[in-house]
């Protein structure tokens, strides 16, 4: 990929109508590197393990649907997808609710200690979540929360708050003061202003932080690994890992399970990609 820069130099001569074929060639190369392994996994799921052992890099011959059917009917796939959904939605709701409230105060109220409070939250960006995992486990154990959805949701909300507040605050500050004054003249208090005017206007930013929190939670592995020992509470990442070590000789089954586990995140992201890039623009604005 480092060749990209050298290859780009022909542009010197034609800055405006820069060679489209070259653009496409490079873009195709990028796309190929990104998705070939994924396609391999998905297609591999349509082969049998003997086929894969005989020739690891070939198309299915014949195509078999048995692996996918097996995963969908016999494994805990649906149970785990449900658990993942509960945990991710819970995390997302928690982060957005707590994040908006705090960011609203930090953006629209003038009070002593405001910047201190903001710095206090941004400090969380420096804290590696991984470092806290062992004491977190001990604390959740003492609170008797191990093996419950809360054991995953509450810490995930906490660790997503700093980024959420950092992204939301500029959005909420940017909403013109005049709107607040107008609302006041119409007899709306600050809380009414937050609920009826601020939230609808800040929806793009809310969607962004919501998606980030959701995807992070959906993909999370370390925290669930430690606090969800009960197999009936396993989320999809734990399920995939479990399946792949339990049936390690069933390569085709693992490929099928892995592709099915990928699907929700991919679909979700496809619909939300614009929102994420758009929302981050505020956060990385120079």
């Amino acid at each position: 990929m480092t060749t990209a820069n050298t290859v780009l130099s022909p542009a010197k001569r034609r800055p405006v109508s820069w060679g489209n074929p070259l653009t496409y060639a490079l873009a195709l190369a990028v796309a190929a590197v990104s998705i070939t392994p994924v396609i391999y996994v998905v297609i591999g799921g349509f082969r049998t393990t003997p086929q894969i052992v005989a020739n690891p890099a070939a198309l299915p011959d014949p195509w078999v649907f048995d692996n996918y059917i097996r995963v969908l009917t016999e494994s805990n796939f649906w149970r785990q997808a449900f658990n993942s959904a509960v945990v991710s939605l819970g995390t997302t709701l928690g982060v957005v609710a707590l994040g908006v409230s705090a960011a609203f105060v930090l953006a629209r109220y003038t009070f002593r200690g405001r910047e201190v409070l903001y710095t206090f939250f941004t400090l969380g960006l420096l804290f590696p979540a991984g470092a806290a995992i062992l004491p977190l486990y001990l604390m959740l154990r003492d609170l008797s929360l191990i093996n419950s959805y809360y054991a995953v949701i509450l810490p995930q909300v906490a660790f997503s708050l700093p980024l959420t507040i950092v992204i939301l605050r500029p959005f909420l500050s940017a909403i013109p003061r005049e709107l607040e004054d107008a609302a006041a003249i119409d007899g709306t208090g600050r809380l009414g202003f937050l609920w009826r005017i601020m939230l609808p206007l800040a929806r793009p930013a809310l969607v962004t932080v919501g998606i980030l929190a959701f995807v992070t939670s959906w993909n999370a592995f370390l925290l669930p690994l430690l606090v969800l020992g009960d197999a009936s509470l396993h989320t999809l990442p734990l399920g995939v890992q479990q399946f792949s070590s339990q049936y390690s000789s069933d390569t085709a089954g693992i490929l099928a399970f892995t592709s099915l586990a990928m699907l929700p995140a991919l679909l979700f992201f496809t619909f939300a990609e614009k929102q994420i890039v758009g929302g981050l623009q505020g956060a990385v604005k120079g």
Partner: protein
Amino acid sequence: MSSVNQTLNPAGGVSAPPAGLRPADRKAGRARETRRKWYEIIGLTTPAIVVYVMFVLVPIGFAFYYSLFRWRGVGPPTDYIGFDNYVMAFQDPIFLDALRNNAIIVFGSLLIQGPIALGVALLLNRHFRGRTVFRLLAFVPYVLAEVTVGIMWKLILTENGTFDALLRSIGLGGLIQAWLADLDIVIWTLLFVLTWKYVGFAIILLLAGLSNVPQELNEAAQIDGASWWQIQRHVTLPLLGPTIRIWMFLSMIGSLQVFDVIWVTSVPAVRSLGASATMATYMVDNGFFARLWGYGNAIAVILFVISFVAAILFQRFLLRRDIEGAITRKAK
């Protein structure tokens, strides 16, 4: 502030006191208004503060406390041993291997992902038909769960697996290695997998940064006769500086605590020899699975201190200029 706030509050009965009101009344109204403001501030921020303190800050404090004991996690810790756990960690060659591996991952990620991401972001920032689709495809690895990425590459890179077959089929069979089993190679294989997984994140951030570069600047430079390459070098790149530094910062913190991909992709046997261990996998292996809770917490503190110091140094020397303008645009 004060005058605006008074008009804001009809519910409190103090909305815009008429000019004729007695000064004492006005004063009482203002006090009530201030009190009300503080109720709102406290009510709105308390939930966030409580959750944040309880699940982010408190555990780190506890980690330090537990790290001073020899403790197997049953009952309260009693066997106080001072800093012995820390001494033990730095005398364990496996932990030193883990530190070295983390260093490889931190610098390897910055040096490899940075240029790739910049090239791809500049490419995907050009206007051409189908750009949206290509962007989506480039982000795919980043969206996938670490676990699925790990299992996927584990299957592809396994001995006599797909990758080896591919190499053989193009006549490069001689290059085949035990990608995940060779103790000298496994960390570089993992660095490759991490690069594949996370370069998309750098691309997303850089594209967001690029879309903030005003089109007019490019056009002005073009009119002045600058080539596409000159525009990127002298206009776009400098404006992208803050975004690049933020990415470097996030990448560094992420690399220091990397766990999932390493844990899933590399075999426990290889990990336990140190060849593919990182601070985080070492911490979980020893603290959680081997139930050396005191020792594991000491590793947690070391991991935390290293990340924190790295973050502070980075802030101090590189991010300082950006911190107000970029990551935390100062609220008015």
